[in-house]
């Protein structure tokens, strides 16, 4: 505890405090722009920190990381153009809120859930990380396969109107993600001798296309129709009331737990956490409430936001205790630590306890700052809704092109984005949801490579999935969550028919 107080004293030193503020703000901006994810933000800031004092440099990166994970949800809620893959889950219920003129409420719920999730996970990190670290080691190929399959089973619950069309979107995504070098044998599949396809379709440009470009086309169509039948969006700054928030605590806490857990698992990032939490929020909801998911249920915003940000603290657990990164961002953080001459691992808490606790205090402060900026910024963020839509549309297009290019400075990605945008527009028109494709592109490669890796480990025996309890649990959960909504849907439609007749 003394160490933590001492850490706070360090964090509030003006030179460091300003860096955290700068980091959080930069992170929020980067996250909100399409294509620029938290991972990229941290990578962009990394070289700047080389010359800094270790604590200052790391806390700047922490600020960018936390801000970036949250920032994605702003664009997602206001414009239906998720800035990061994780916030694609937030768009499901966030954008309907905006359409109903309750943008302020949605942003308020998002930032409160996000910082609560973040704080929850940092407390977990501070107090029980050695106990939690074991989770990271228990997860190997069969368990990761289980997690991926479980994640994929969510497709049926994020399908919106038609489960069949949702499943088609998802499975189409799974087919698409087999483009590129086979993860096990490196055989180039469906690459047509194009080196840009060797690593497969970069999924962030695909996501930008599916959401942002198609949204720009939809805006154009609406404008040309004269806004008929769409209703003008009135931006309201009204924050969520205490009564509204009270109903969300259960969801927020559960999602925070999910996020922290997924954060600890190496190789699973904020996107997976957000979608899993969304699904669980829906699963735990009352029967009549389930219907409102996807149409503007506050729990549909709170769950992915809490989980996505709770991931951050979780991802630091294996990084600091074992020297294993918990997600893509902490993988870059590992580089940052090493450059600063700090070797993460079991001995870190003894050799540099002061630094570790300053880092912890800085993380808590960064989450609180995120809450403050998020709430204060609502008025500023929502002014974007006052910009006429016929100006917003070209802005979306231009930012999408820059964002898609920025991922790996390969113009091929921009063509990928354009193709996905055109497909995405027609998907919207014909009632095919886009989120299942995004989910499939995140989890498909993981499912395939982990399954086959597990089989290499077991020398071909499928028993490896049944013998390992964690893997088996996930696989059973996956089957349950895939099959139950289908059966429920059948029963419901039969009932509906019976009533109609």
């Amino acid at each position, binding site marked *: 505890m003394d160490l933590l107080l001492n850490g706070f004293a360090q964090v509030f030193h003006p030179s460091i405090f300003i860096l955290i503020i700068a980091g959080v703000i930069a992170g929020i901006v980067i996250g909100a722009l399409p294509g620029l994810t938290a991972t990229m933000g941290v990578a962009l800031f990394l070289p700047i920190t080389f010359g800094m004092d270790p604590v200052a440099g790391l806390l700047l990166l922490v600020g960018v990381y936390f801000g970036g994970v949250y920032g994605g949800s702003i664009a997602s809620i206001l414009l239906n153009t998720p800035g990061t893959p994780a916030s694609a889950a937030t768009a499901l219920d966030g954008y309907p809120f905006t359409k109903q003129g309750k943008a302020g409420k949605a942003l308020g719920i998002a930032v409160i859930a996000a910082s609560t999730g973040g704080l929850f996970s940092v407390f977990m990190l501070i107090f029980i990380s050695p106990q939690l670290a074991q989770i990271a080691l228990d997860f190997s190929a069969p368990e990761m396969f289980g997690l991926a399959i479980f994640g994929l089973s969510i497709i049926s619950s994020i399908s919106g109107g038609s489960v069949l069309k949702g499943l088609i979107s998802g499975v189409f995504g799974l087919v698409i993600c087999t483009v590129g070098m086979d993860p096990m044998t490196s055989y180039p599949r469906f690459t047509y001798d194009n*080196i840009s396809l060797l690593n497969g379709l970069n999924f962030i440009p695909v996501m930008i296309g599916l959401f942002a470009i198609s949204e720009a086309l939809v805006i154009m169509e609406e404008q040309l129709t004269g806004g008929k039948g769409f209703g003008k969006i009135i931006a309201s700054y009204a924050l969520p009331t205490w009564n509204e928030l009270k109903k969300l605590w259960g969801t927020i806490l559960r999602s925070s737990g999910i996020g922290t857990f997924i954060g600890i698992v190496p190789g699973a990032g904020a996107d997976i956490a957000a979608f899993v939490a969304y699904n669980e929020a829906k699963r735990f909801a009352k029967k009549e409430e389930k219907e409102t998911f996807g149409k503007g249920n506050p729990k549909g915003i709170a769950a992915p936001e809490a989980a996505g940000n709770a991931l951050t603290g979780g991802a630091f657990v294996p990084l600091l205790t074992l020297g294993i990164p918990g997600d893509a961002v902490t993988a870059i953080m590992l580089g940052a630590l090493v450059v*600063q001459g700090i070797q993460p691992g079991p001995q870190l808490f003894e050799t540099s306890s002061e630094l570790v606790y300053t880092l912890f205090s800085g993380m808590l402060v960064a989450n609180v700052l995120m809450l403050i900026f998020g709430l204060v910024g609502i008025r500023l963020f929502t002014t974007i809704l006052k*910009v006429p839509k016929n100006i917003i549309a070209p802005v979306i297009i231009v930012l999408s092109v820059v964002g898609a290019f920025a991922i790996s*400075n390969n113009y091929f990605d921009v063509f990928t984005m354009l193709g996905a945008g055109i497909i995405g527009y027609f998907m919207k028109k014909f009632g095919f949801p886009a989120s299942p494709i995004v989910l499939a592109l995140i989890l498909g490669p993981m499912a395939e490579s982990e399954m086959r890796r597990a089989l290499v480990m077991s020398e071909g025996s499928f028993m490896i999935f049944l013998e390992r309890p964690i893997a088996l649990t996930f696989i059973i959960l996956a089957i349950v969550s895939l099959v139950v909504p289908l059966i429920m849907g059948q029963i419901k439609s039969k009932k509906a028919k019976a009533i109609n007749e």
Partner: protein
Amino acid sequence: MKNFKIFSILTVLVLLLAACGGGNKDGDKGASNAADFPKKKFELIVPYSAGGGTDTVARSFADLAKDEIGQPIGVVNREGGGGAVGMQNGANAKADGYSLSVVTVELLTLPHTGLAQFTYEDFRLVSLLNEDPAAITVRADAPWNTIEEFIEAAKTQKLKVGNSGTGAIWHLAGAAFEKETGTTLNHVPFEGAAPAVTALLGGHIDAVSVSPAEVLTHVESGDFKVLAVMADERVEKLSDVPTLKEQGVDLSIGTWRGIAVPKDTPDDVVKVLEDSFATTIQSEEFKATLEKLNLGHRYENGEGFLNLVKEQDALFAELIPAIGLSPQK
């Protein structure tokens, strides 16, 4: 009126931004000659993502080299195809000396696996930055204490050895080890070296064939032990670990990183770069950075670098088809 308000806000914003950021863009595209070279910003293409090991080395190099050469060096990450996209880009870049590329051992392995159209002859090699050997690392509680015991065990049972992906350098190292020692290993490919190390830490595999840099933290914490390194000489930070050569297995394999330019770059320009980079790479600061990253240091000039590449290319030309990774027709 509303539009006008937005317009004026944007104007102010632009002016502010222009004031602090504008003016340092050099549009000069004239031909260069050694006398006034360099006179504009360099571009250094890194064929891997920002934040990775190669990127970190490249960025610290760029940071130190800019003072020596007198012009800024902008790092551009062009990832994709296991390095193929970036290196192809680098080979096709303008041969004026301002387009530098980081090349890695994949410059040799990708063409042999049929995943790239270029060869090392499309580049003019300038300087070698570093070199890291492969190593055989096992858990500290593993029953094998020496590489002989490991080899003996591998002859009777199929040990699971993790690597960073099929056809990647650590897989090739593992396969070469298998070939040289007459053992049969179960190569488990991961997406990069880090997840392989994690799997070893969790006890899900028996060994990894990655570089000492990737495992050193865990060796120091007492979780792992390195049985042998696949280099000509012992590794500084693991001075009690024998090389395979000492154990009678003639195998040296590993990764390296260097700076290259497109093959048609004029000789006098290459000479300027080579001389300047020599000072940077051999500086104490650069050595210290590599040291912090647990990476091995080795400098060679253009000629020495080319010899190393030719020697290794012969090794891969034989090894890659032998393990069935050459392109299937």
